[in-house]
């Protein structure tokens, strides 16, 4: 019998982990001579105090939903995809190629085409490690790390070479045509006399991300494929017995994972930058790990965790602007979240289980 009730498992454990990460972060802030409470207030104000702040928070959250879902689906098949970063880079390449070289009549079609292309490029980049895992037994963690570096070299190569407009000094593609411009929240929600989300990068791809959460939830818990992926994740030998092909599951789960990571590019490349620059992903692929761990690999949890990290990113940028706390503090918080929700899970869980056990014993004896 499970010792803890489900709500404790789903809500309490992540919350305590988050609390521990926050306390340690506060100590770091104190140590560098700033006031943690003021810092928190500044972050809340900067990230949530205006539609402008929300526009950034939701923009970041969109990235993290995609990469978080990517890590989560791989987790369900008991694989650790550290390659979200590289897959998202390739997704960016897919978006750039489609936007630059296909004359789209309308943004909606461009979004569709770019999404498909981003997904295909991201999936393709995940396919090789998946194939090597399935057929050659190469550890997917190591191969996906290697593929991140190879992706970076590849993009570097393309952006100072073939994709750079002639005469430009910057390692980036040219600006995408106007017809591929995605409606930003400012375009969508402003009225004639009230401009909302002014200049913020949040755009329509946020809703694509939300739709992806629902789609993934349905896939994992309501379809045969999801059933097979979870079964494989729990026990490979049992999956084989039941006629579930490990190769098929590894390949499909990683391709979905890569596709989701790649689709992040419709937000950051197409929606925000409107061109492909070097290091466009900015570590979002790795934040996906924290988001998936925190969200317990459940799409709804991923959504909430992505919002939290969106808040941290925007709040962190504000902190860097107004205080002497550098943006990298967010990386520290992210590391602590990964540490507590992922690696030190038992440290949080074991004392909790003991508490629940102590409360349950008298009830059982009766």
């Amino acid at each position: 019998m499970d010792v803890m009730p489900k709500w404790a498992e789903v809500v309490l454990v992540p919350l305590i982990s988050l609390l521990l990460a926050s306390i340690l972060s506060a100590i770091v802030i104190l140590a560098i001579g700033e006031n943690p409470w003021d810092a928190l207030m500044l972050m809340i104000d900067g990230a949530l105090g205006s539609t402008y702040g929300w526009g950034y928070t939701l923009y970041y959250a969109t990235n993290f939903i995609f990469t978080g879902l990517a890590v989560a689906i791989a987790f369900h098949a008991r694989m650790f995809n550290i390659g979200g970063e590289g897959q998202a880079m390739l997704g960016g390449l897919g978006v750039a190629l489609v936007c630059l070289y296909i004359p789209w009549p309308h943004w909606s079609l461009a979004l569709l085409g770019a999404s498909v292309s981003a997904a295909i490029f991201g999936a393709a980049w995940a396919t090789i490690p998946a194939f090597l895992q399935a057929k050659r037994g190469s550890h997917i963690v190591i191969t996906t790390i290697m593929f991140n570096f190879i992706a970076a070299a590849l993009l570097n190569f393309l952006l100072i070479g073939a994709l750079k407009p002639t005469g430009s000094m910057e390692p980036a593609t040219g600006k995408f045509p106007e017809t591929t411009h995605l409606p930003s929240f400012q375009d969508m929600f402003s009225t004639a006399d009230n401009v909302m989300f002014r200049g913020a990068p949040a755009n329509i791809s946020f809703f694509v991300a939300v739709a992806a959460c629902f789609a993934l939830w349905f896939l994992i818990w309501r379809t045969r494929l999801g059933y097979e992926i979870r079964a494989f994740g729990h026990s490979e030998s049992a999956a084989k017995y039941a006629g579930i092909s490990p190769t098929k599951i590894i390949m499909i789960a990683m391709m979905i994972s890569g596709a989701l990571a790649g689709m992040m590019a419709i937000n950051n490349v197409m929606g925000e930058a409107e061109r492909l620059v070097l290091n466009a992903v900015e570590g979002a692929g790795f934040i996906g790990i924290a988001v998936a761990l925190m969200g317990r690999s459940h799409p709804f949890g991923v959504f909430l965790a992505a919002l939290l990290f969106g808040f941290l990113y925007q709040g962190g940028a504000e902190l860097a602007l107004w205080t002497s706390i550098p943006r990298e503090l967010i990386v520290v918080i992210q590391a602590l979240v990964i540490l507590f929700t992922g690696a030190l899970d038992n440290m949080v869980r074991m004392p909790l289980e003991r508490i629940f056990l102590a409360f349950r014993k008298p009830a059982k004896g009766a």
Partner: protein
Amino acid sequence: MSETAPAIELKGISKAFGPVQANKDISIRVMPGTIHGIIGENGAGKSTLMSILYGFYKADAGEIWISGQKTTIPDSQAAIAAGIGMVFQHFKLVENFTVLENVVLGAEDGALLRPSLAKARRELKALAEEYELNVDPDALIEDIGVGMQQRVEILKALYRQADILILDEPTGVLTPAEADQLFRILERLKEEGKTIILITHKLREIMDTTDTVSVMRRGEMTATVKTSETSPPELAELMVGRKVLLRVEKKPAEVGDKILEVQNLNVTDEKGVHRVKDVSFDVKAGEILGIAGVAGNGQSELLEVLGGYEKATGSIKVNGQEIDLTGAKSDGRSRRERGISHVPEDRQSEGLIMDYMAWENVAFGYHHDDRYNKGIRMDNAAIRADTEAKMERFDVRPPNPKLAAKSFSGGNQQKIVLAREIERNPDLLLIGQPTRGVDIGAIEFIHQQIVALRDQGKAILLVSVELEEILSLSDRIAVMFDGRIMGERMPDQTDEKELGLLMAGMTKGAA
């Protein structure tokens, strides 16, 4: 005190794992220079007790006395220092180390390795002569057979100057001949004054080798008797707490057409080991073909091929039609569609997803069935309803479809698997180790279900390492050794002795 102190005396040992009481107030005395058997069913607490003695677990209460001295054994180091050696059921050897390195590991004489290895080489030679325990010290563990590996474990203990040797289910992986060899070694050790504790669930071993025997049941020590003053039926009764039917009631088989025909089947596993060699046999409607053999002689691979998760060459026909052995239709799903059901040997790692709820497990392998799906959605409500019905018919307790498989007892887990597979109304049922780790009440139920299916005219292929089970259930018996079928016998025209010889690969002696 005139009488010699016992080599081991345990007083009132108790140990609980959470709510499970694995050992309850256990007391035992083992005299030096004797072989003492501990017998009991799976989960009776034998291994836990010995783990306490070897310092793996700390007892919640009780005392340990070694040679008249009260001792505490907080870890394995202390156990070794107290002269206790243990041969685990699953060997604790480093596969890519040599025999010598394995013997020396943890018993080195100094920080440098070479002198330790040289000394161990000399001592190993002496021990080999003294106890007839010949092993090549430079062989890698992964290159030698299980019998040899077991000798290495015994040598490890002797090298550490153990006076008390505990062996946990030592014959599970041995052929009867290898087992006899082991017992000769144990005899020899006893003559040299060593004390031996033999943990087993096999009555015959107890009767043949031990001086005294203790019986455990549900964490309690129910009796300790002199072996010469007891009998197998008495021990069996002590083990399970009531009289046991050693034979299954069944009427003669009404054999029909051939359902399964296997011809020249060969299996080579991923490591390139030839596991099944040119095997041919058939199973007819309305009969149970039992396949006997020591674990690891190709039976598992045979089941895996038939169940669709191991490739093979040769020919298999079901209902007269060839089935695909390597191609796209060689998977488990295709096998199920051809009317083959499969209760696998290991329900925990194959038959069930332990973290899935009972209802999810009831659809396992059949999750593509129309009745479990509505378009692209799985029809979870339909699966749950079906699970409730199955749980009731197979008396699964507790009858809660939303409980995870790991929360059920071994017997109830096996009933879930059986319910799923038998209720498919298959033409052919593959069933491996049907009662491994199952309590006695469930064993009878499971045996009845298998026989009932046979009486409905289904073909059944039974694989079991328990000779008794094979003898009592089968209508025909085939014995496997080293990937080959050594011969077929009728259960009423053979006995354990003949089958045992076949299991050891000795056809001539049996003929």
